[in-house]
């Protein structure tokens, strides 16, 4: 094995770090506009999905601009008025919360009287594939369609996400089944809905 001097080692690492740093920065700056465009399109696609539309990401922005318009904001949450796929109008409420490993977020489309969920879509940064990551799949989001935010006495209960068999006295129209094996992520969705749909209904 060759013997390397300290100067050599120092220069070697400095040069390597410099090359890698410059290389990655150039790549990152060069690709940024495309990455941002992808993110915007994905957001539009997500909102449209909650409203019942099924579009490719490439067409999402155009369709979004034709059916949705920003709603006057009186809080920090983004809202949009949207014409849903079934022809009715609804309001899009943006949601954000935390899952097991990182952020989760999503959009809920409420009926015009703000009492019924017409559709939801969820995304996540880094939930476990096959477990928590299932919140973004149709199988889970379809469970929310038609659920009510209020009980029969007019009390706000949100839509609870509850493990099977542990419903307490929450009625069927006010809850959906949690994902088994993904307790923390399910609780995150539950907390996100309970907190953020209430503010928007005051």
């Amino acid at each position, binding site marked *: 094995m060759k013997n390397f001097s300290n100067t050599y080692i120092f220069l070697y*690492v400095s040069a390597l*770090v410099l090359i890698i740093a410059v290389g990655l920065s150039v790549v990152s700056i060069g690709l940024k506009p495309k*990455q941002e465009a992808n993110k915007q399109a994905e957001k539009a696609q997500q909102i449209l999905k909650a409203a019942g539309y099924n579009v490719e990401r490439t067409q999402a922005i155009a369709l979004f601009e034709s059916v949705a318009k920003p709603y006057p904001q009186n809080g920090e949450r983004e809202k949009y008025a949207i014409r849903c796929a079934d022809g009715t109008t609804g309001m899009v409420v943006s949601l954000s919360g935390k899952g097991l490993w990182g952020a989760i977020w999503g959009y809920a489309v409420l009926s015009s009287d703000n009492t019924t969920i017409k559709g939801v879509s969820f995304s996540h940064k880094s939930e476990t594939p096959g477990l928590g990551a299932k919140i973004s799949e149709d199988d889970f989001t379809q469970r929310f369609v038609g659920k009510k935010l209020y009980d029969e006495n007019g009390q706000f209960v949100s839509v609870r996400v509850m493990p099977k068999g542990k419903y307490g006295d929450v009625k069927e129209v006010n809850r959906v089944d949690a994902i088994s094996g993904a307790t923390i992520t399910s609780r995150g969705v539950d907390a996100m809905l309970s907190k953020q749909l209430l503010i928007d209904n005051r």
Partner: protein
Amino acid sequence: MKKYLGPLSKDNPILVQILGVCSALAVTAQMKPAVVMALSVTVVCACSNFIISLMRNTIPPRIRIIVQLLVVSFFVILVDQVLQAVLYDVSKMLSVFVGLIITNCIIMGRLEAFALSHKPFPSFMDGVMNGLGYGLVLVIVSFFRELLGSGTLWNHPVIPQSMYNAGYLNNGLMILPPMALILVGTLIWIKNAKLGKAK
């Protein structure tokens, strides 16, 4: 060609070298992420093996781990950035794995054990084969976990509704990590019984 095939059976990274077990537990609840993870590890392992092998005579031994880590992270970040811009859907599937690839012991293990002392082409092949050997185990484990745990394969339901109506239930234990460990253990057992113990 034959000398490169070891990682697929008698020198398998997971079953014999016991490398990369942590990610094998994390991503095998369903087949799709398992395959994506296997492909990304193969690409990163092959490319970093190749580059480290090219540099092997200039790397001072005292800081070789640091140099390896730099090269591996460079590749992983580069691949991630390009995917985010060009193949956004693939990147969404991969996002959670990026961190896991950098820390995957197979990559560092192969750099240390092979690339530092071999020529670039054999090193590249070694990376590819170890990635595939890793993938093979991931696919087998995720096949059983998804089938028995969720009743689906590649997200398509395969267990007929009539079975559920007759009282069949998915095995919830299958989608939790301990079951992956038990399946990997079973595979090691089968492998040892068929091919003899690792020396």
